[in-house]
């Protein structure tokens, strides 16, 4: 699609290397900030004591240790996963507008969870990540298939539109289920807005291992994505088995997206916006884009969640709503700058 400018070519290896520790520093800062501030003001001493000298009977320690810390961990994992998934999708589909939410994966996973819990009556959370994965995989395949079938192939526009269409369809089905079964649905209301509050951190026991594997896999596959992003012919010419690579990448993306949805509900825009911001700094080399996107995604979600927790105490705003509110204007700015 010529309407969208190719990413700036050229990576400065030195700048790229030097950025990693900087970003790690920022991540650490954002993480500590997330733990240090909140609706209740706690002294730094209390926070440190809670971390290193935990006293279960002091609620201030519980706040840091059991409320803020798990949530910060969740923000890091989910932010990194969604952002990395988005970066890979943008590379594989050569579509700068790819994003797990925009391309229907998120709504596929959400849809599967809604169907499983409200229609089929599943309640054991052990299955939820797997159900979400099935849904995300199904939606991804359907969206890609449709875009492939469109004359002209899987272009950014055809992928975006088929993703939007599938999302619209699935949300219409969810609404019909809502009308037919109000009570079960009311319990899913908060889950469906997406967010990090009140999430079940024990779910990490089930989704943690596959997510860690997928994150590592994503970073390892990243160098070959750069080649893939140049086009299938060039990649094949360079000896890359594009088919096998695409299947591996799809698996990584589906696992990351589905597990994120299982953990935090459907959160939009992280996977879309962060890789683009990263690309402005590190250029078009996926070797750098992928790890940077993961780090920056974690930072973004930590920041957004910190805002959601402290903006209007004693209330909390749903993280999902703020993610889109901040993400959408960024997206618009991006489109303005990137398309001519």
């Amino acid at each position, binding site marked *: *699609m010529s*309407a*969208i400018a190719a990413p700036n070519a050229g990576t400065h290896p030195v700048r790229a290397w030097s950025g990693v520790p900087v970003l790690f520093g920022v991540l650490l800062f954002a993480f500590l900030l997330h733990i240090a501030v909140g609706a209740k003001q706690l002294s730094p001493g209390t926070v440190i004591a809670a971390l290193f000298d935990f006293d279960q009977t002091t609620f201030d320690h519980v706040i840091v240790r059991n409320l803020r810390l798990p949530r910060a961990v969740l923000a890091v994992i989910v932010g990194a996963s969604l952002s990395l998934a988005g970066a890979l999708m943008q590379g594989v589909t050569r579509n700068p*507008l790819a994003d797990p939410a*925009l391309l229907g994966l998120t709504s596929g996973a959400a849809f599967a969870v809604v169907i499983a819990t409200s229609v089929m009556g599943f309640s054991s959370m052990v299955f939820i990540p797997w159900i979400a994965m099935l849904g995300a995989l199904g939606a991804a395949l359907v969206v890609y298939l*449709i875009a492939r*079938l*469109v*004359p*002209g192939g899987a*272009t*950014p*526009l*055809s992928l*975006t*539109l*088929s993703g*939007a*269409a*599938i999302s*619209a*369809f699935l*949300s*219409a*089905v969810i*609404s*019909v289920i809502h*009308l*037919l079964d109000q009570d079960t649905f009311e319990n899913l209301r908060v889950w469906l*807005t997406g967010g990090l509050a009140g999430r079940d951190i024990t779910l990490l026991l089930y989704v943690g291992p596959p997510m860690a594997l997928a994150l590592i896999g994503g970073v390892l596959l990243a160098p070959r994505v750069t080649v893939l992003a140049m086009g299938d012919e060039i990649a094949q010419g360079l000896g890359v088995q594009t088919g096998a690579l695409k299947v591996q990448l799809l698996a990584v993306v589906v696992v990351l997206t589905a597990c994120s949805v299982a953990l935090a509900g459907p959160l*939009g*825009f992280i996977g879309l916006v962060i890789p683009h911001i990263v690309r402005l700094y590190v250029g078009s080399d996926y070797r750098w884009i992928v790890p940077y996107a993961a780090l920056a995604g974690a930072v973004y979600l930590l920041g957004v969640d910190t805002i959601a927790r402290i903006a209007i105490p004693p*209330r909390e*705003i*749903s993280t999902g*709503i703020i993610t*889109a*509110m901040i*993400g*959408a*204007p960024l*997206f*618009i700015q991006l*489109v*303005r700058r990137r*398309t*001519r």
Partner: protein
Amino acid sequence: MSTAASHWVFRSKSERVALRLPVRALLALLLLALALLVISCVSLATGTYGVAFNEVIDTLRGLSVSRALDNVVWEFRFPRTLAAALVGAMMALSGAALQNTTRNGLADPSLVGVSQGAALAVVSLTVLFSDFSGALRPWAAFAGAILVALAIQGLSHTRQGGSAIRFILMGIGLSTFISSITSALMTYGDIDRAMAALSWLAGSINAASWSDVWTLGLWCAVLLPALLAISRSSAATRMGEATAISLGVRTKRIRNLQLAIAVALAAIATSVVGPLGFVGLIAPHAARRIAPAGIGFHLLVTAMAGAVLVSLADLIGRAAFAPIQIPAGLLTALIGVPLFIVLMVRSRSATSH
């Protein structure tokens, strides 16, 4: 398709006015009108208030079977049936006009933010102002739709002019932004007031009244001829700007006029029944497949196809799961998305523009 056999040609004596009527389009128009008539009849005879069909006919003939039946048929079913057809036609025409102006076969009022703008306006007024009356709702929706349309137009315009893909992407971006504000209002606003906006948000025709029908009908009567009047010029712009300029048409003004009409059609329809997805997208494509024709006839067939689609969606929505009512807006999405995908896969021009 411009062979002599596929057209009936009428000429006035002086041959200053010539009318070429494409047979296939005429036939399609007739068949669609027939389908609309059948659906409308079924719709008039269907409902929770069970009555025999002949009683409905009697009521329509002006014989009062009972006061309650008069009410059901005249105040509920009749305006509802008419409103469904009118709204469908208007959304379809809006889609056709949008597709023309953006020269993108995949443009639709709900994909370019018009519906979301209307929704935000209605929800924020309903939730934030306690004495917001139902009578103001159409105006609020209209204002919201227009503002968002202008914002998208402004944002997607660069010094080099607006591009079709930017327009669509801006629509997606701005729509998501606006939807997130709407959902914040729905989540954190006064829950009772948020509830009052729910059925409108789902795109429900269940409460269409005669005044709604008049509003829709009047605007339709104004905007449809206006759209047809500039159809010749818009046909020129459809061939690409270079050709159009060479034809001496002031492209820019026509595009803006068409865009204004498109937004107005969608905004008025949305203001009455709430956001109805995918009708504007499907109907023009369906019309083109059913009967390829010149722009004028194409618009008529499109309007008719939209009317049939929404009437059908409304009928299914209230009959399929009775006594539970499914809003037409959900059914247009459920029917519309698969159709949209088929059209996308089969269209030549979907991505080449």
